[in-house]
């Protein structure tokens, strides 16, 4: 019967409503008067785009059983499908007050906040996730990305630390390595009065280390690709990987003269980010 449920949900995903109906009929015969089946009926209505009727069913289910977390989450999904993200956020926050250990929900809320460009609250959601699961490198990396996007000097420093932590937890996380390279580069060429020359030198060293790691990974990938592909494409991937390797090293070299000189101006800033989209909001 679990298989029937899975096929039902997959059929809804693919838009095969007849197959979904067939499964639903079998399931409701086997389990009459079941809450779960009622929820599946509501999901079927959602798939037809009959969102009003689906919302009605979910609301009724929530009224009869206050502990029904799944129907509350479906309600949030319906609001999201309607494009009403502010209401979806409100509903999800009240859900999380009752069920604060639901990690998927925190992740979803973080994404909803990001769509609204509310970086502080999105970061808060990620903080909850990191608290619950401090060894998960992806949470650290996502938190660092949010902080980087915020763009202030303090948040950039935080981003650098969290990217570093993500790399420590998983040295193969390319996003964390790239993030570390960029964040440390930004910190190294920061013109903010609060950053000392020592901290800038430290950031520059970090950026160089990250660049070396990236270069190494690309060289390894280039040689791996060469083994499996024809000569044409292996040339291109080799070229591509060496391109990136040189780019990474160039970026890191940009940081060191600035930090070594210890002066406030950052001539490398323009060269470092040729098409940068820094604090754009």
């Amino acid at each position, binding site marked *: 019967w679990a298989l029937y449920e899975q096929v039902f949900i997959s059929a809804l995903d693919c838009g095969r409503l007849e197959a979904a109906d067939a499964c639903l009929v079998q399931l409701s015969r086997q389990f009459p008067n079941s809450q779960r089946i009622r929820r599946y009926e509501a999901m079927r209505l959602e798939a037809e785009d009959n969102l009003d009727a689906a919302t009605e069913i979910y609301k009724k289910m929530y009224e009869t059983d206050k502990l029904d977390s799944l129907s509350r989450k479906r309600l949030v999904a319906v609001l999201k*499908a309607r494009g009403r993200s502010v209401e979806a956020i409100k509903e999800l926050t009240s859900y999380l007050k009752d069920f604060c250990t639901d990690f998927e929900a925190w992740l979803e809320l973080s994404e909803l906040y990001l769509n609204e460009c509310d970086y502080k609250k999105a970061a808060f959601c990620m903080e909850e996730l990191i608290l619950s699961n401090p060894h998960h490198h992806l949470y650290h990396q996502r938190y660092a990305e949010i902080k980087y996007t915020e763009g202030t000097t303090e948040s950039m420093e935080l981003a650098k630390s969290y990217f570093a932590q993500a790399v420590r937890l998983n040295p193969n996380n390319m996003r964390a390595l790239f993030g570390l390279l960029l964040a440390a580069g930004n910190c190294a060429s920061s013109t903010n009065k609060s950053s000392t020359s020592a901290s800038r030198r430290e950031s520059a060293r970090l950026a160089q280390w990250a660049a070396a790691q990236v270069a190494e990974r690309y060289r390894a990938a280039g040689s791996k690709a060469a083994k499996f592909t024809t000569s044409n494409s292996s040339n291109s991937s080799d070229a591509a990987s060496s391109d990136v390797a040189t780019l990474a090293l160039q970026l890191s070299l940009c940081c060191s003269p600035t930090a070594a000189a210890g002066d406030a101006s950052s001539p490398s800033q323009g060269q470092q980010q040729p098409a940068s989209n820094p604090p754009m909001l």
Partner: protein
Amino acid sequence: IVYTKIVVMSQFLVEPLAVAKIVLHACKYPHTAVNGVLLAEKPSPDSSNSSSKPIVICNTVPLFHSNLNLAPMLEAALMQIEATYKNYAIVGYYQANELLNDASPEGVGAHIYQKIAENSPLPRSLYILVDNKAIDRKCSTIPLIYYQRKEAGQSQKLERLPNSAVAIDDEEDCLETLANLLVRQAYRSLVDFDNHLDDIGLDWTNSRLAEQIRN
């Protein structure tokens, strides 16, 4: 490129490779938003900067299918693109929204487009929004909507371009190729930058797919 009357009068000319990659990218991830940038050849320094000729968008780079709003990976991607495609410039941005009915170009995508438009060496930049509702197997029309920024400077408004302003090179052939690709599920072999970051062995320039499409 056949310079028919329609092509000469339009502001942009989009090549079939670009159209195909955009639609394939959207089809590969139907459940999330996807985005990417548009490439055109860099103008040679001695050519007259005539704004009357249509700008030819010859290729695209599919970027992300998750967390489109986050900056660091976007910066890393743009840097790599600039380093790899030395003879091409980033002249536009495309996006396919998450919701089926959402046909609005506003949001973070618009900000990214504005930055691209400011840094582009060519006089005009294009924002392509995928019309989610218009994608179908039969490929009777090109499922794209075009926008451009109203004027340079402070204004953040995007104005919709009429279909006549953007020509597709050899439109019928393009539609046929697209239908073929969708039937063969060619989108499975498309690699976007997110895929590349997950496994750097994957080629985000999609050179193999480009060969397939050209033939």
